[in-house]
């Protein structure tokens, strides 16, 4: 039981980290960003590359975490404004199919760019993961790094909630989410809010990638898995809802841990079973709001 709870929370933290940026971007820009997984991959590559390049055995562990964080920030701060200003802003208010096609094209382009820059050979940046060591919970060893992920996910979640609800920018963002036209009429710099919100979403995607990098072999193709999982979690929680992403991640994490421990054959379908059940009873997701169609 303890193992299920620990595994569930660990997985929930990871999936929240990688999907929260997607829900934020949808909330503000109303764009379902298929390239979210690519931004995750770029974050993973940048973080892993920095660790491989600059972190040597004997250096303080904190430096490796600083390098991962730097990787996420560099990837997010460079790509976020660039993509939003040069591409996405032309799709605002357009048909959803067009937005999906544009972000899908971006997904393909970023996938090829990643290969151009980093090649197809894997990057290994496991030093932060293995150096932290293990902790025993109920006779089963767990990596301390997983606890770091839990802490990071909690920090990101609380930080985003505070930003949305307690800061001026958060209130501006809420206004833009509510009604873009009225926000413009009220003098809010809507394009700037959109650029900043998308950049935050990009940094979050890259952060998820960078802090996953030490636990995996960073290879081409890691973007696809993440985008599918992120979509599922965000749909369960309700598109655009921060609280929904958090609760959706927790439900998926616990459900998956139960499957892995008790019914391993069902591991693959768990997330989709949860999604189907939630959507049957709440088509707009757990925290999503039913929208009134404007004519």
């Amino acid at each position, binding site marked *: 039981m303890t*193992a299920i709870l*620990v*595994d*569930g929370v*660990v*997985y929930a933290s*990871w999936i929240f980290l990688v999907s929260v940026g997607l829900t934020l971007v949808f909330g503000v820009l109303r764009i379902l960003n298929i390239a979210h997984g690519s931004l995750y991959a770029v974050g993973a590559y940048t973080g892993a590359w920095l660790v*491989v390049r600059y972190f040597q055995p004997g250096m303080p562990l904190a430096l490796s975490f600083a390098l991962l964080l730097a990787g996420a920030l560099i990837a997010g701060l460079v790509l976020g404004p660039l993509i939003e200003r040069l591409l996405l802003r032309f799709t605002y208010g357009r048909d959803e199919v067009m937005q999906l096609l544009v972000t899908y094209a971006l997904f393909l382009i970023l996938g090829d760019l990643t*290969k151009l820059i980093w090649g*197809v*050979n*894997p*990057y*290994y940046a*496991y030093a932060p*993961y*293995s150096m932290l*060591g*293990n902790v025993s919970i109920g*006779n*089963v*060893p*767990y*990596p301390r790094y*997983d606890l770091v992920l839990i802490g990071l996910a909690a920090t990101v979640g609380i930080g985003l909630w505070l930003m949305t609800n307690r800061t001026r920018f958060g209130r501006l963002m809420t206004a833009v989410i509510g009604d873009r036209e009225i926000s413009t009429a009220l003098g809010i710099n809507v394009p700037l809010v959109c650029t900043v919100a998308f950049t935050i979403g990009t940094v979050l995607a890259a952060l998820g990638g960078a802090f*996953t990098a*030490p*636990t*995996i*072999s*960073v*290879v*081409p*193709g*890691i973007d*696809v*898995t*993440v985008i599918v999982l992120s979509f599922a979690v965000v749909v369960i929680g309700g598109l655009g809802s921060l609280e929904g992403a958090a609760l959706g991640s927790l439900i998926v994490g616990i459900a*998956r*841990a139960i499957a*892995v*421990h008790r019914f*391993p*054959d069902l*591991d*693959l379908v768990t997330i989709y079973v949860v999604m189907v059940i939630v959507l049957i009873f709440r088509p707009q997701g757990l925290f999503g709001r039913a929208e009134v169609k404007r004519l």
Partner: protein
Amino acid sequence: MERQCFMTFRRVIMAALAATAMASATLVPSSPAAAQTQPQELKIGIVTFLSGAAASPFGIPARNGAEILLESINKGSLPAPYEKKGFGGVKVVPVFMDEASGPDPISAYRRLASSVDFVIGYISSEHCLSVAPAAEEEQKLTVLFDCGTPRIFEDNSYRYVFRTTATAAVDNIAAARYVYSRYPNLKTVSGINQNYAWGQDSWKDFSSAIKSLDSKVKIDAAQFPAIFAGSYSSQISTLLAADPDVIHSSFWGGDAEGLLIQGAPLGLFSRSHVVLTAGEPILHRQGIASLMPSGVVLGARGPHGPLAPENKLDAWFSKAYADRYNTEPAYPSYHMAQAVLGLKAAYEKAQAASHSEHPTTAQVIAAFTHLSFETPSGTITMALGKGHQAVEPAAYGVTKVENGKVTLTDVKRYPVECVNPPEGIKAEDWIARHFPGAKNCPK
């Protein structure tokens, strides 16, 4: 009205797409006549993953192997019995195609087949299964070089298709035999395999082979994470809690490396005996090979790489590959070598039989059927699938870390008749019937 216009427009687009698809289908030449002309050179289409997750562990090493071999074949610098330049004096030219180039491998295959004399290719079993019937329709001699599913020749028979590597069932039967003899007090076995055909078939073959060898061994519920899942912490903690004697995994590429990165620090590889049936490429990965602990049972999907028998061809191939790419060849390079050398041997045998420099496709097929030929991995014989499917010996070893270098020790070799089912019996039936006819199995 606007919606109506849109619908009309959409129909026009759909019709245009359908018309284009039909036109493309009729434009694809289906005549094999091109292969029968007198060529100055032979074009060989080589299909392997050049992008995607399977490129780095499989596709690129296979392409590298093909490049080295074909260049050396054209120079005539291979050791015996392949000293002859080209294919019997005819220059060979590779035409590489990415196996991940699109969602429709059959159309891609047809396009390639129309412009080359032979095709060597396919790592994915799904691609092999779908391309084999297309090869028959195109009447193009196609050599499958790496995919593992036994279903190609167990469920069908083909005239134009050959496979120069053994099926994945052989890997798992040999793994079961190795584990059974190495750990005589074996009580419980579990596994972690990717949740698709490769992982499920591998686990089914391994667990049923263990059960067939010793019915008292308890087979625990195995873990089946999604392919490319990335995070295996839940599965690892479940396996650690269950604490089985042996853990079987057919993980490959980034998934195998991820399992090592996440599992090694937690003691997964020291608490249980772990078997990685496709783990050999990890030994050639600078930056991660050092994580590999002692005591891991490692396979190379045949007698390849560090498990290859000593012979002149292997000595030449390993050196040529290492000199050029600064790393040892992994098993996909060896699989490619088997396909290229098999085709060369068949072509030259057909030349001799037909007394012609340019034998027809039918003559090459006749020569290839039931052929035995030398490779860096030893002698390969096309013994199954009416002479179109290779049988191979198998080998497994256990890792030993010494002075930071990982080697394989306690290597056991399993002769062909010990791990390959005889003609006419499906691998799963052979396992279930306790391997009738198996002989010369090492203890």
